């Protein structure tokens, strides 16, 4: 995996995944009701429709269908929802990294951070994207083993001695436009 663009994509997936998980898990037991699609204002319904389509739920009737909880919760501020959704969609859209790889990253990070929402949601997404049980087990294995290595390294306070073996990407910043 050389090329900094791939690593930027991965970092944005990890970051925004954590952002969704924080809201979903942190507010799961709080007295804050999600916005219901059937009673949402038009601009929220428009965003909900885009969310359903992105997650393969576009065949559900207008106004119907479940919206992933972090989106439904932040929909109390329609403009905020629209911006967060735009960032999520951009992060997970297939570019240098595939959608399934990005979803695997999101699943691994959710599992690592013990996010009940994120783990279940991205596991469902992995399966929807065609990843079989062996593939899911591969990601669980990587997550588990590196959760071991990292704690061993931390306990012994080891310094990284492998970061420099990767080639350096000397290319410039790509112009992705302002849209």
């Amino acid at each position: 995996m050389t090329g900094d663009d791939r690593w930027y994509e991965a970092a944005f997936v990890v970051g925004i995944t954590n952002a969704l998980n924080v809201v979903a898990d942190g507010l799961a037991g709080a007295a804050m009701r999600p916005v219901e699609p059937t009673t949402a204002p038009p601009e929220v319904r428009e965003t909900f429709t885009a969310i359903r389509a992105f997650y393969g739920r576009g065949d559900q009737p207008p106004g119907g269908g479940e919206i992933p909880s972090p989106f439904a919760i932040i929909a109390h501020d329609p403009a905020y929802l629209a911006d967060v959704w735009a960032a999520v969609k951009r992060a997970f859209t297939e570019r240098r990294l595939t959608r399934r790889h990005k979803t695997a990253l999101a699943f691994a990070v959710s599992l690592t951070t013990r996010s009940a929402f994120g783990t279940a949601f991205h596991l469902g997404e992995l399966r929807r994207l065609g990843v079989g049980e062996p593939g899911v087990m591969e990601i669980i294995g990587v997550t588990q083993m590196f959760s071991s290595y990292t704690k061993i390294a931390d306990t012994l306070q080891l310094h990284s001695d492998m970061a420099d073996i990767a080639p350096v990407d000397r290319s410039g910043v790509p112009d992705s436009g302002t849209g």
Partner: protein
Amino acid sequence: MPTVRLRDASEYPESARRLFELSRQWFDYDFKEPPAMSRVMAWDPHFGGPHGRAMKRAMAPGEFSRGEKEMVAAAVSGANACTY
């Protein structure tokens, strides 16, 4: 400063040094000294051996490539706030 004194490869018994060759093959890189984690694992081959095999089995190409899995591993390390 590490909690322990990491021994040079030459200080390890011959049986443990076999793990260093496996490490060199895995990373496909000639380290001056084996990576710190490899030296930690070689301290107790009865732990490091099966742990390393489990890691290699998890990292082997399957539905996801080795490269994709290395990135997942990096993300997991980041989520664990581990700089190693």
